[in-house]
């Protein structure tokens, strides 16, 4: 069975265009949604493998939609497809649980490839995204010992990604398989997401929300 996809974007032309592109390449678009509320409502009914998520959803936020979807559908992966440059939003989306990011100027081939890799659980990292994640780890390093840090190898891998090397090229340089490279990249994401979750839990406890 083909990969099932839900497309969330507030622009009808774009939404329908992307849905058609994906359909023509053998992916099954099971739903589309124009805003965060609709996305969170519809997703549990169609249980897509991949949610293709724009971050700028009119008055609502794609980050909120990601939080809602990841909470109810742990098997569903979220790939952010957004305008380049919304740097802070992209980081928030990753912390909320997205496992990849692609700019809207990407070609149809790149998009289809990214959706397929996301469905397989492989993070979709552009060089720009690696730069953002590296910067974020450096920034939170100042917050104290409780924050996650990258291992030397993870830093090395992320830097290679940020400098435009492919997983295969990185594997050759480090004499490891590209799967190992991908798992390093995945770990850098997972730590950020765990940190985000632990912060949420701590916040909930402090606010007395987690008592019952």
């Amino acid at each position: 069975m083909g990969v099932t996809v839900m497309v969330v974007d507030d622009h009808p032309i774009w939404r329908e265009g992307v849905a058609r592109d994906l359909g023509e390449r053998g992916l099954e678009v099971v739903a589309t949604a124009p805003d965060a509320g609709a996305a969170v409502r519809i997703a549990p009914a169609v249980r897509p493998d991949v949610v293709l998520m724009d971050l700028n959803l009119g008055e609502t936020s794609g980050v909120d939609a990601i939080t809602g979807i990841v909470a109810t559908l742990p098997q569903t992966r979220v790939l952010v497809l957004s305008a380049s440059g919304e740097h802070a939003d992209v980081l928030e989306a990753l912390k909320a649980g997205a496992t990849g990011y692609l700019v809207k100027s990407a070609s149809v081939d790149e998009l289809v490839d990214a959706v397929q890799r996301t469905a397989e659980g492989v993070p979709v990292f552009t060089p720009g995204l690696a730069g953002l994640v590296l910067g974020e780890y450096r920034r939170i390093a100042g917050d104290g010992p409780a924050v996650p840090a990258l291992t030397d190898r993870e830093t090395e891998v992320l830097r290679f990604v940020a400098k435009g090397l492919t997983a295969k090229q990185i594997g050759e340089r480090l004499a490891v398989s590209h799967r190992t490279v991908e798992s390093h990249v995945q770990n850098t994401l997972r730590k950020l997401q765990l940190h985000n979750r632990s912060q949420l839990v701590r916040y909930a406890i402090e606010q007395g929300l987690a008592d019952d």
Partner: protein
Amino acid sequence: MFRRAPQPATLIDVDRPLEPLWRGVVVYRVLTLVLVIAVAAFHMGSYASPLGAGLVLGVMTIWTGVLARGYLSSHRDALAIADLVLCAAIMLTTPLIVTDAQLDASTPGMGSIWTSGAVLACAVAYRIPGGVVAAAVISGVLVVAKSRATLVELSDIQILALAGLTVGYASVVLRRAAERVRLAAAEEAATAERERLARAVHDGTLQVLSHVKRRAAELGGGAAELGTLAGEQELALRTLLTRGRTDERDGRRDLAATLRALASASVTVSAPAHPVELSAAVVTELDGVVRAALANVERHVGAGAPAWVLVEELGDAVEVCVRDDGPGIPAGRLAEAAEQGRIGVARSMRGRVADLGGSLELDTGPGRGTEWTIRIPA
């Protein structure tokens, strides 16, 4: 998206930041007038000329009324100087009205503490220099009018100088704060306007450009060229709308935003989400070095060859990497260029980086592409 909350009301009225000080000056003037009249009434029987004393107090009362109106409207800077002159004149009537015996017994001269208000007014109007000069003038006149400089006069002079300095400084600080608030408000307005435009463009133009690009690519032929053009404009417009501020502020500039402006269809720029601020001169120079490296990629690898720029903050240093996937620079090629007297790109880049106190490393080889690493101590 979050809407920014409206700017909270500040304590500072941006257009008239000195208003509170001027109100204070007027209140001080009225209170000291009452005090001086009370003291003069107590001494009235012993004055050499009670009539003269009454006249001077009358002039002071009228002048206080003039000041109360004038200091709360415009043209008050000139009025402060007139105030200073009139105060000096009033003090100089002291020998005609107050007896020597009274002055020996520490009876105040004419005007007394009321005249210190002129020092405050000059300090508000002309800042620290105004306050200090006015304090010197009133002090000088005080000594001349009473023709003595005992501990009483010296302590008055001390207080006058202190008041002139302090209020002058307050005037400077208030003006500066108001200027900051004004700039911040202007920036806020500019940002809001840009966000509004960005939303409008995002909602229309960008969608259409993206769509044209995609469909044209499918149609092929002449349409493909149109698609490419639409794609380039789409990228340029997105970059314009979403990049941070690249201009100089307080001598600092954001390196990340500055280098992001170099992104194109072939150049990818990766940087932290937050601003990487360095001195503006350093950023300008780094921008130049990165441009030189990218131009070099075009020349040696080919026009449109992909290149990547990475900006990293390492705590004690900032690193900028420029990499391409080209054939690499053959060993000895750089040295050869230098020997032939051609200032190689490498040498000019190295010189510029060294001038910034940084270092430049080159990693190249067949199958590795070319990678320049610029490191600048933070």
